[in-house]
């Protein structure tokens, strides 16, 4: 016993730590879905800009009907208790973005009122969400199921056909298209196209329709791939920046990409999924057989990029058009990343994304450009439980 330690009766000052230690990250379920919905603001704003007040009204009708239905449906059964308003808000926003603006109010030349489709879609979404398992349980995306049901029931009514001119952004009526005859060939991009006076919008042929007609051999005259990409499809800027008729949320690829980057920044989505979907989609589109020329006998070629008769530049442009004219990016960013349908493990997500990308390429080239990616997601999401089981993460220890 040789060392005497001092006793300090006075208390040393506590050390201040600048950060409070939390027992939880603070992020809750409503926060997750509200952040998802925040990411949708970018494409939604682009849609409202290009499709006007009808787009805003369409979104309001879908979202409000879904919210009202959710409040009621929450009281139905044990599963009803799993419906969350924030979750339904997110789903209804996605659904609204998949529908065209012209459904709001009424079509002048339609025999019947079409606007009830919008609240009906919102209400159906809630019911299908309830039927498919509620919050986080389902294997089929409820928005996808609702959309496919709407397409099956209403078909071509859901096809958009017009876009606002530059001088009528946000406030114009997308159905104010003058005589209503589509302009056959557009050379100038939307941003520098001459303004047609006394009408707010222009009826335009959609790139997806032209591409679909080509891959289905539906042209009645001789058309080569080269002629198609040169003369028959709109300028590619219209697909990238905006200026093409389309569903509200798919007005601009740039806006979708910004929304995706926002969700990535907030850590809500896994970059692998959109990246691998788009990469595998592109590669598959390069490889899959495509007609070189539409004539009496359609000439199909695998790996058309290697065919000297078309040239790599034409095939690349064609593939880029196919990618940009379809809702593939929208599906990859806002739907395939949805927690309820994508796998949880990294490798499983990669396989899931590649499968969806390849299926999307097949279905959009040979079935429908505007619906193919959604069919691919439907099939891919059914594989999720098996991928989760087979490709679980390997424990570190």
């Amino acid at each position, binding site marked *: 016993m040789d060392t005497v*330690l001092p*006793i300090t009766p006075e*208390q040393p000052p506590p050390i*201040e730590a600048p950060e409070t230690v939390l027992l939880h990250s603070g992020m809750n379920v409503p926060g*997750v879905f509200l952040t998802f919905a925040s990411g949708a603001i970018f494409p939604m704003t682009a849609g409202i800009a290009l499709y006007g007040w009808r787009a805003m009204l369409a979104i309001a009708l879908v979202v409000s009907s879904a919210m009202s239905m959710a409040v009621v449906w929450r009281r139905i059964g044990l599963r009803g208790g799993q419906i969350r308003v924030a979750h339904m808000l997110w789903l209804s926003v996605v659904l609204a973005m998949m529908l065209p603006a012209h459904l709001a109010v009424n079509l002048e030349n339609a025999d019947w009122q079409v606007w009830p489709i919008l609240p009906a879609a919102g209400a159906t979404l809630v019911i299908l969400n309830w039927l498919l398992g509620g919050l986080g349980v389902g294997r089929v995306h409820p928005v996808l199921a609702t959309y496919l049901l709407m397409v099956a029931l209403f078909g071509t009514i859901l096809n958009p056909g017009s876009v606002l001119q530059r001088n009528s952004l946000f406030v114009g009526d997308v159905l104010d298209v003058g005589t209503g005859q589509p302009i056959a060939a557009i050379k100038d991009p939307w941003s520098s196209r001459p303004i047609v006076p006394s009408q707010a919008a222009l009826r335009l042929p959609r790139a997806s329709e032209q591409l679909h007609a080509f891959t289905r051999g539906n042209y009645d005259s001789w058309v080569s791939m080269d002629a198609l990409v040169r003369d028959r499809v709109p300028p590619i800027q219209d697909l990238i920046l905006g200026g093409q008729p389309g569903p509200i949320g798919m007005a601009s690829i740039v806006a979708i990409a910004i929304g995706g980057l926002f969700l990535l920044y907030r850590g809500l989505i896994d970059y692998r999924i959109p990246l691998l979907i788009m990469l595998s989609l592109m590669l598959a589109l390069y490889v899959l057989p495509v007609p070189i020329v539409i004539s009496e006998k359609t000439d199909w070629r695998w790996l058309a990029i290697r065919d000297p008769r078309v040239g790599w530049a034409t095939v690349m442009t064609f593939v880029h058009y196919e990618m940009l004219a379809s809702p593939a990016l929208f599906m990859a960013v806002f739907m395939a990343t949805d927690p309820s349908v994508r796998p949880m493990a990294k490798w499983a997500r990669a396989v899931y994304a590649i499968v969806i990308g390849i299926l999307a390429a097949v279905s959009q080239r040979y079935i429908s450009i505007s619906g193919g990616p959604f069919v691919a997601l439907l099939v891919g999401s059914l594989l999720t439980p098996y991928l989760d089981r087979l490709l*679980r*993460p390997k*424990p570190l220890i």
Partner: protein
Amino acid sequence: MRVTQHPTFDPLPTPEILRVPLTPRGGVEAPTIRPAGTRVAAGERLATAVSQLDPWPIAPVAAEIVGTCSITLTNGRPVPAVELSTICDDSGVPEFLAPTLEAAPPADNDRGGWIDRLREAGLWIDRWTSPNLLAQLHDSLKRPIDTVVCSVLDGDPNLPIGAAIASQETERLITGVRRLAKITGATKILVVMQRRLLPDVAAAVKAAGGMSAVEMVNDYPQADPSILLATLLKRKLRPGRLPSDLGVLLVDSVAAVAVGRVEIDEQPMTSLPVALFHHSRNSTHLATMLVGSSLHDLLEVRQVASGGFVFRGGDVLRDRRISRHAVMAGSEIALHASPGPTSVNPDPCIRCGWCVEACPSNIHPAGLLDSVQRRDTKAAEHYGIAACVECGLCDYVCPSRLPILLGIRTMRKGGIKG
């Protein structure tokens, strides 16, 4: 922690009552103690015989034996203890004297002799970041140990006890680690630290020779033995097993310094550094406390308001709740006081996968919770329950506030052990 200067651990005044644990292991027969009323000097043995695996319980200060009692340690484990009434000096203040070991140190190459000396010094280390030291040393007599790893990483970066002790007692740390390498016959010594924060310690380790300072970012839960050995040596240590099973002796810096103190100062382990983080005040209280003091003593002396508080031993996310009467010994030295839990109604799992992404063991916590709910032990094994280090990160990130950690612990208690 974001403490820029490493603080000192001021000794806490000696409490009137000390409850010195008799064995670190719960559920074993208590050793026979000396009769009640016996006066013991600081450093004197309190028991007449102990198991070969246990350190000798020694009196931290001069005291009178009151009797035996049952206590809980700061890791929540109940163990038997001997209650001591401390003896005051003439001024009425309890004596706080650092005793020295009476026996002479064994020969340098006497491995068994050194293990016995550490036992006699009451060297008790058995906490999350530093698994049972004596058991590891005993293992080293049976199987080869090739590496000694000294972790200066702190389990909880908000409570940098290890880093503070390493910077203040670098010489003892180096001596302690070297002694452990001699006892085990290890040829490689690694001191793991965040060198940027401890440049002096890194330089001293390098200058000492025969050991390396290994850079590692102190991200939670990097200090966990399983995660640390997997990262550092690519060896897979099942949670709950001793590193010596894989030929490694792992200690934290506080343990290494305690060994160094036995060698350099010939002092037994009668006190230990403790840190308490007060979540409401957002402040850290550091102190040197006698073995056998309670958390209550620290709260009283530092006048920490703690009514309605929940106390946790070890890292806060591991959620090991302890009572305010938990006793300080060789177990957890990082403590937390936070307001009582608010009731949370969990949402259903939304399959966000954040638990999978956050898991340092690469297991599937959401799948595990599902297995627990279905009582499916096979699925739990499939999802990697055996590899769970119970760090609690899954609970932290879960937006649905699901009790994943509780589920895993419940499942383990039900049969599946790590």
